[in-house]
């Protein structure tokens, strides 16, 4: 078992973002966290990475409480891929990826650190853009660079915050396939916060559906992504088609429960 979360609670001053979250996540597993905006997906990822400190509950990684990890230890264990952000200063792709070696660096960066950067550049097939400015890249390329940076940390757990947002369909598939390939080849664990339910069902082993800070449902895609779950959590009517084990979710209409009851 890789990550064990028990009774996790987190509040931003007055708003409670996570309520009693309890879940186990295993090795070599890729888990999608889905749910409407503000349901606590990003907060959960940030708590696992110790960016936020939960008020209650425990998170164990390999049996060790996250609280007992130093910031450097966490950085060597967990890689975090944020949503693509605008740089204020120019930085080359190489420099951005090299930052992933920060937890291992003294003041000088060694040959080994550089080799590791070359390795992940090759793995993600972005070595041809290594010397380009990060800001000049397309959204898909930027996302790959950010994943490369997280991999340069040599993490055992990879957290991705909406890696496919703002990407075209080709890059959505490419990024998800890269994540899946890395997880299976390196035997690491990935937790992906994602909005696209079709992508989630296609590329992940398990889905955790969150609703108002709580885990509403968790399990294999077909058992979680049911019309009734989606209606309750998102307030949307959908049709779910099971095409030889691949689930397709077709949105039908917006169906806010409140109006329904008034009718």
């Amino acid at each position, binding site marked *: 078992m890789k990550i064990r979360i028990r009774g996790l609670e987190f509040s931003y001053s007055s708003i409670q973002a996570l309520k009693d979250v309890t879940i186990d996540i295993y090795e070599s597993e890729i888990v999608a966290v889905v749910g409407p905006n503000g349901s606590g997906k990003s907060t959960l990822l*940030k708590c696992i*990475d*110790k*960016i936020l400190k939960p008020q209650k509950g425990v998170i164990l990684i390999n049996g060790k409480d996250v609280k007992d990890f*130093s*910031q*450097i230890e*966490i*950085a*060597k264990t*967990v*890689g*975090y891929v*944020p949503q693509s*952000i605008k*740089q*204020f*200063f*120019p*930085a*080359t792709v*190489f*420099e*951005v990826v090299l*930052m*992933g070696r*920060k*937890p291992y*660096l003294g*003041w000088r960066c060694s040959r080994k650190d*550089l080799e590791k950067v*070359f390795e992940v*550049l*090759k793995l993600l097939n972005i*070595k*041809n853009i*290594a*010397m380009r*400015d990060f*800001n*000049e890249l397309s959204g898909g390329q930027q996302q790959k660079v950010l994943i490369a*940076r997280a991999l340069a*940390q040599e993490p055992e757990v990879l957290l991705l915050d909406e890696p496919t947002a703002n990407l075209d369909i080709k890059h959505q598939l490419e990024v998800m396939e890269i994540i899946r390939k890395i997880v299976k080849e390196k035997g690491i664990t990935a937790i992906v916060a994602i909005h696209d339910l079709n992508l989630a069902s296609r590329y992940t082993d398990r889905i955790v559906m969150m609703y108002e800070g709580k885990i509403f449902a968790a399990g294999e895609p077909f058992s979680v992504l049911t019309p009734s779950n989606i209606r309750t959590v998102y307030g949307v009517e959908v049709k779910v088609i099971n095409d030889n084990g691949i689930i397709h979710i077709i949105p039908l209409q917006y169906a806010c429960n409140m109006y329904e009851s008034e009718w």
Partner: protein
Amino acid sequence: MMDTTLLQVKREYERYIGRKLLFIIFTSTLIIMVAGISATLGSYSISVLEVYSTILKCLISHPENTKESIIWNLRMPRIILAIISGAGLASSGAMTQGILRNPLATPYTLGISSAAGFGAAIAIILSKGIFAGKYVIVGNAFLFSLIPTFVILALARFKGATPETMILAGIAMMYIFSAVTTILMYFARSEAVKSAYLWMVGDLGRASWEIIPTMFISLLICFTLLMWKTWDVNVMMIAGDEVAKSLGVNPERERIFVMLVSAFLTASIISFTGTIGFICLVAPHICRMIIGSDYRYLLPASTLFGGTLLLTCDTIARTILAPVILPVGVVTNCLGGPMFLYLLIKRKKEYW
């Protein structure tokens, strides 16, 4: 096929680092050349070779004649003061831009300059200061310039040391100190107002061998401390606070540390020279355009380039209207503004 490309990337990276090192070596050479040329200029004409031989000679013995005395006792302190001041202002400017993730930020944004100006104005207009004697202005300017830093520090404990909090607090402080300075000037005699105002423009006329060692040591210590933090600032600048945390950097702690060191360095310079503008903004940007933002190289490059730039400006200030010597602050602002605009238009890359 795959491996050749990877090899190409490695070569390209080595060339990229090589270019940065080349720029640093180039600026170091430039600084020595400009210093040599600057020492020849003035009412007493001296050749470049004479300058270098005199400097080498005076390093071991005392100056013997008028010529040597002019070079060693009049021109050299001013040249060295220009280099140290430019270097210190540029290095603290470069690091402040990084920690605040804002290309327009300088130590002055954090209120240091207007507080120093107020301290100096008290000493000049009211003749009151914490230290007595000839260091009354210096002492006042230095102590007052640290006030905004400590206010920001205190504020950061409650509101978090985010760039937004720090910049807004700094700007608030700037307005407060400007206002009280204006009140002070409003009721002062006109000569005192003039000298207080000129202090704020910034001038290297107070150069003497006496102050050089203190300033040099403070530059050396602060530069070393800043150099030590270049990796952390790289991460904060490139990745932002959240990702910096996930990479094992404590952004708030590092931000405060770098702010304290930069503020101390800036204060130790401007309390002697007055608030020389533009160097702390322009020098880092010019270097960034040439060698990129990796602070491991950008910091030393900005430091050397800042020294060269201020020395060049001061040489112009001394010679352009000779025998009148302009305050160097006027020249940095006059040249810095257009130069900055030119660079903005010419820049190739998407910058901010």
